[in-house]
């Protein structure tokens, strides 16, 4: 039976030695192998002890057994430390030292540490086998050796409890429980044999086999785990390859270029498509300054600013800009990216996608031009409709100038000429002249083509200008306009003339709606208000009201006026949409209509 134990132990030792050699990091396996080999050795010694017929032989085998035991216990202690990761270091060293001392004592004393004397060997029958047991008494130092075993157990228990607390419950239970149980068994056997209370030989190696079984199971579990992990890893790798292929296909189809910018090392990797987009060859190395130089000079500051902001806050980035290819041609690029920070909080990486949108951009620009044309025509029409009132607006300052001048003429021909008031008269003339010039200037700017150019606009001021323009018209129609402007409105980005056109349209529509109201009930209310990231303008009237389906109003060629074209609101919507805002209508709860339009607050980043 003993040989079987030895064989089993050696087998396990070899397996785990193999594992250790394949993967040098797993010291636990090495320690286990050491332990298993030592147990095999101890096992052989036990056999030898049982066959020893003379006391001298017995003593030699006993020493060998202790030697093996030393290695078993020491590798056990360090195995626990390595596998569980817990166990007090000082205690581990102490135990190692103590067992070393025990071993030395064993070697020095004539009968070893456990026996104070052995007088003879006694033959005993154990089943069909003949074994020999020592006859003698146990030594005082035996207790010392046994105590060291006990301390070893405490160490293992302590390590197991620590591991349990840390959450490694299974490991703690198997390793700790297993060791403690089997070693106690072995210790019991040792005590019984030494004291001679029960006539049995050392069968400690059985116990140790138990320990090996537990620990072996533990380690094997690790190996199995590792195997399943490897399998999962392979599956994942396969999936990754597949998705990379798909991405590559998609990129190829859409002519997308990929880029990865390693900020810490400086270089930018570009995919084949990406390089082709910029007109770079496959071999050229690209860094950030190379990339920056390729950007169109007008767009460069904005792009740099946007990239800087994205790196700061480590988020997403989207930008459209022009590049100048190496052959000099200009292309429009749409670029999206993601910035990541590393563990130290520094911006480490930016990965992104670039796409050539020159074709789309051209179409967009043309569309924008057509929209501008249409808006211009509509504006001219509206302004023409106002021409009567505008003439009146001009006649006021002209009248002031004429009457003042003629008054001055009268004063100058008096005898003596009354010069006192002439100075004031001339100041008033100048002021009136300026006023007239302003009206004409506004008129001209409205009638101009007005290409789209996004500027920060102060809406309150803009609306007041429009009200100035329509003042005479509104008075003529008996409409009273009331304003309720929010204070400290943030500027919105827009083309001044176009937003004025929208406001003009809404105001004139409101006046038209009230044409059948009784005089004195034609009230127009204009308000501005601030929302989170937008500004809202509201135009309210007490007129004829709206149809149930308010969205129809904004369709082209929808009109309720006999001579109307029906384009006004459609153009308004088109203008507001081009400004990333929205315009809509709702019926007034009491009487009339409410029109709103919202525009986003201007951010520092304004698109080219």
């Amino acid at each position, binding site marked *: 039976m003993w040989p079987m134990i030895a064989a089993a132990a050696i087998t396990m030792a070899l397996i785990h030695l193999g594992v250790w050699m394949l993967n040098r990091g797993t010291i636990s396996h090495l320690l286990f192998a050491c332990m298993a080999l030592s147990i095999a050795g101890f096992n052989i010694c036990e056999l030898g002890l049982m066959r020893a017929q003379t006391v001298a032989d017995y003593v030699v085998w006993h020493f060998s057994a202790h030697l093996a035991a030393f290695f078993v216990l020491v590798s056990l202690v360090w195995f626990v430390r390595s596998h569980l990761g817990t166990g007090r270091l000082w205690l581990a060293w102490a135990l190692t030292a103590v067992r070393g001392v025990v071993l030395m004592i064993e070697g020095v004393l004539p009968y070893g540490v456990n026996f104070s004397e052995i007088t003879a060997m006694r033959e005993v029958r154990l089943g069909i086998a003949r074994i020999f047991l020592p006859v003698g008494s146990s030594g005082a130092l035996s207790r010392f050796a046994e105590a060291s075993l006990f301390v070893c157990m405490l160490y293992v228990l302590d390590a197991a409890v620590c591991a349990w607390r840390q959450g490694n419950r299974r490991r703690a239970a198997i390793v700790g429980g297993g060791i403690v149980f089997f070693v106690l068994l072995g210790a019991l056997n040792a005590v019984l044999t030494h004291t001679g209370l029960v006539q049995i030989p050392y069968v400690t190696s059985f116990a140790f086999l138990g320990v090996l079984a537990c620990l072996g199971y533990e380690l094997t579990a690790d190996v199995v785990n590792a195997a399943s992990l490897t399998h999962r890893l392979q599956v994942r790798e396969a999936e990754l390859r597949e998705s990379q292929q798909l991405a590559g296909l998609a990129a190829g189809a859409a002519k997308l270029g990929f880029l990865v910018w390693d900020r810490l090392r400086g270089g930018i990797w570009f995919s084949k498509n990406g390089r082709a987009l910029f007109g770079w060859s496959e071999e050229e190395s690209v860094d950030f300054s190379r990339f920056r130089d390729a950007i169109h000079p007008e767009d460069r500051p904005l792009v740099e600013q946007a990239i800087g902001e994205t790196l700061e806050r480590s988020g997403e980035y989207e930008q459209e800009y022009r590049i100048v290819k190496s052959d000099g041609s200009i292309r429009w690029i749409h670029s999206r990216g993601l910035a990541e920070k590393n563990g130290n909080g520094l911006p480490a990486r930016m990965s992104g996608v670039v796409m050539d949108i020159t074709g789309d951009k051209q179409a967009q620009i043309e569309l924008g031009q057509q929209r501008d044309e249409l808006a211009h025509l509509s504006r001219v029409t509206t302004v023409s409709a106002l021409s*009567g009132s505008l*003439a*009146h*607006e001009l*006649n*006021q300052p*002209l*009248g*002031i*100038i*004429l*009457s*003042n001048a*003629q*008054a*001055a*003429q*009268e*004063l100058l021909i*008096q005898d003596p000429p*009354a010069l006192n*008031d002439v100075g004031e*008269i001339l100041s*008033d003339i100048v*002021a*009136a002249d300026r006023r007239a010039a302003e009206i004409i200037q506004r008129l001209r700017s409205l009638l101009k083509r007005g290409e789209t150019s996004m500027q920060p606009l102060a809406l309150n001021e803009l609306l007041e200008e429009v009200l100035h323009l329509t003042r*005479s018209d509104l*008075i*003529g129609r*008996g409409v*009273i306009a009331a304003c309720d402007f929010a204070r400290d409105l943030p500027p919105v980005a827009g083309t001044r003339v176009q937003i004025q056109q929208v406001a003009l349209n809404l105001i004139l529509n409101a006046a038209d709606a009230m044409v059948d109201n009784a005089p004195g009930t034609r009230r127009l209310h204009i308000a501005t208000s601030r929302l989170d990231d937008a500004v809202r303008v509201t135009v309210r009237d007490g007129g004829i009201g709206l149809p149930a389906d308010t969205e129809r109003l904004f369709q082209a060629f929808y009109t309720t006026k006999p001579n109307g074209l029906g384009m006004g609101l459609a153009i308004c919507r088109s203008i507001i949409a081009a400004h990333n805002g929205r315009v809509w209508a709702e019926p007034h709860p009491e009487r009339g209509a409410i029109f709103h339009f919202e525009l986003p607050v201007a951010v520092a980043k304004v698109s080219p």
Partner: protein
Amino acid sequence: MSTEQGVVYVLDDEPEMVKALMRLLRAKQFDVRVFTSAQAFLEACRPEDVACLVLDVAMPELDGLTLQKRLTHRGLLLPIVFLTGHGDIPMSVRAIKAGATDFLAKPVDAVALVRAVRAALEVARARHETVAETAALASRLATLTPREFEVMRHVVAGKLNKQIAADLGTVEQTVKVHRGRVMEKMAVASVADLVRATERLGIGKAES
């Protein structure tokens, strides 16, 4: 340095306009009073003054034509010279029909304005005179006895004393006496004058 007869009120919602007109009219020796709100003007205006009003048609709160109606309602005999920046024909026709003296377009030339203001003041004077005269006649009428009143009515119907006597059931001599008193009290020299006076007062002639 003589000022022209009568007060010129100027009403326009724009202060600069009002100032300019005031300077011009004062330089032309008119007695000018200016207002920028219809309310203020209505409070300050005195019916007994010989006055005219230079008025801007398009004012936000109370438009010129409405004001004209209101003045007429109050019985203010104020001729109005309208000023307009529009040059709108239908509006001018409406204004004239409602009794405006003139309708001028801004910018208004000094000569045209002065002429219109003078004409308006003339009209004002004439109206006041008429009113005064009618008032005088009315007070004289009040002094007639009922009998004398009846006789007067028959006289202006063109009847002879004999006929009047027959109609009223009295003698010719009595009629002659009444007739004489009527002519005296009414301060007229001829029957023709008497007829004009009664027409002024709106008294109908007696039926045959």
